[in-house]
């Protein structure tokens, strides 16, 4: 089945669309995978929908400080702006974070030819 290039990414105007919501993200030490901080359990999820969403940069910075205590498990935690989907789950605002949370938009490995 030939691969078809993806349709255009939704054009989310990151700078134009101001949002007050943030989550804390980092790269997992074991494998570099993007992970998102869950404040209540003070642990990390691969699913951005499970991330704790806070309002305002100062609150997010406090969350980053908490996350920094876990630097064995993760590398370089930082806050990122998100939008909120239905039900309140976080959705990245920027194309970069969207690709980071969903994976590359390109095929990863060509299937072997059938013998």
């Amino acid at each position: 089945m030939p691969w078809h290039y993806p349709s255009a990414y939704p054009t989310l105007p990151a700078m134009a669309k101001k949002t007050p919501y943030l989550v804390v993200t980092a790269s997992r030490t074991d494998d570099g995978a993007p992970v998102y901080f869950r404040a209540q359990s003070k642990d990390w999820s691969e699913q951005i929908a499970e991330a704790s969403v806070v309002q305002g940069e100062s609150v997010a910075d406090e969350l980053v400080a908490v996350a920094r205590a876990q630097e064995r498990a993760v590398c370089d935690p930082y806050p990122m702006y998100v939008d909120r989907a239905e039900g309140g789950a976080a959705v990245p605002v920027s194309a970069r974070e969207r690709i980071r949370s969903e994976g590359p938009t390109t095929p990863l490995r060509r299937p072997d030819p059938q013998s």
Partner: protein
Amino acid sequence: MYQYDQYDQRIVEERSRQFRGQVQRRLSGEILEDEFKPLRLQNGLYMQLHAYMLRVAVPYGLLSSTQMRKLAHIARTYDKGYGHLTTRQNMQFNWPTLEGVANILDELASVQMHAVQTSGNCIRNTTSDQFAGVTRDELEDPRPYAEIIRQWSTFHPEFAFLPRKFKIAVNATPDDDRAAVYFHDIGVKLVENGAGERGFEVLAGGGLGRTPHIGQTVRKFLPKEHLLSYLESILRVYNQFGRRDNKFKARIKILVNALGIEEFSRRVEEEWEQIKDGDMLLPEEEIERVKKHFAPHAYETLPDSDSELAALALDKDRAFGNWVKNNVRPHKVPGYASVTISVKDKEIPPGDLSDYQMDQVADLADRYSFGEMRITHTQNLVLADVKVSQLRELHEKLVAVNLGNANANHIADMITCPGLDFCNLANARSIPIGMRIIDRFDDIDYMNDIGDVNLKISGCINACGHHHVGNIGILGIDKQGVEHYQLMLGGSAGNDASLGQIVGPAFTQDEIVGAVDTVLQRYLKERESADETFIHCYRRVGMAPFKEALYGDN
């Protein structure tokens, strides 16, 4: 090819052992990322958007079939079953785990490979002409000199913490630059002086990135025995005077242009006077010792095959004929040819090879090309020593593994950086744009009609996709959170080095492929004959007709 001696082997094994300990300390929490980062970067390990990325060094792009099989094994065992060819003739893996990397370094050491000098502010992998040793137009094989530079630069204590990364390329011939020496921190050109003696012209201060510069000549002729002392002198001047206060102004190109080439050269010569006859002098015996590793293969004595090659290009099997025309070039030994295996296909990211394909190419190298292959800086592979009589058979086998595309040196044969799909620094995606362009120009007759033109795509101003030197360059930018693409025309990485110029306002991702086609359609109208390539046509007619075609009167 070069074979490790006991010292080389011990170095890579010890490095692998050290890194395993560092990984264990990181995983246990004994050291944190701030401490670990400089250690991992000295072993080619980056953190990308989705995972770690390990860049494996392939000195001047030369690989044995044993090494390629090992890379296939690594891709299969520790990654997602593929690897990516890079513009420094290396291979990188996008998905290893940290613990896996410690094992990968052991695996690499077992086949005389490593991942040092592929990251960090050191002298990076030295690159060279992919047709070194087999091309008719070379003065001599540049690989022994690239290897000598590798040995000198590896773990050179004085140059372990340079202001920024440092890249050196060695070309084979003064007439046809296939190693982009004008765009390296140091470019080394093999030349002959008026007395017929061989030596080097040494360039410095070239580079791409956010402030592109064409390298300038520091010394017109350097006798061979002084190669290392001269490089050392340039590095010393750079190490001492290069800026460390601003990352974006720390490359040698900034220093060379701030001082001016005369003053920079004067400082280099002054330094060199003090060390030129010291222990870095390269005696002829040492050059000969290294040259023995690159001795010509045991070629058969065969009749001249130039006319046969020309006939094969017109073969009635047009897929084969086009492949011969575009991907095969004459060899200096009669009866042989060099084959470029295009790794540019509309269904995979440019430069990606699956583990299966790696194994297959290794088998083909064993069967048809003395067990060796080369990675090119344009993200392809080369089998350098194929008998002309076996080309058809080889082509069939390449087609069977989806590596038989006849697009070398044409519009689909592009350089593409990983872009926003993988890279932390990128502003826009490159790979999907590249794949769309390959798809758009999939018609071989149209591609042949357009002829020799190169296209290069970068996802940000760091220019890893060399967009400044593409005949057609594309630069991805972020415009208020939305990916856009600037189109540039007129760049060239060859002897006629030039930097591309931005045509006008950026295009959206849905417009950019059509914009490339518009430029090429206009070229077909403007060219004086089919022999006038895109770059020559552009230099003759200038930007205006293309701008008009793209933007009209606005």
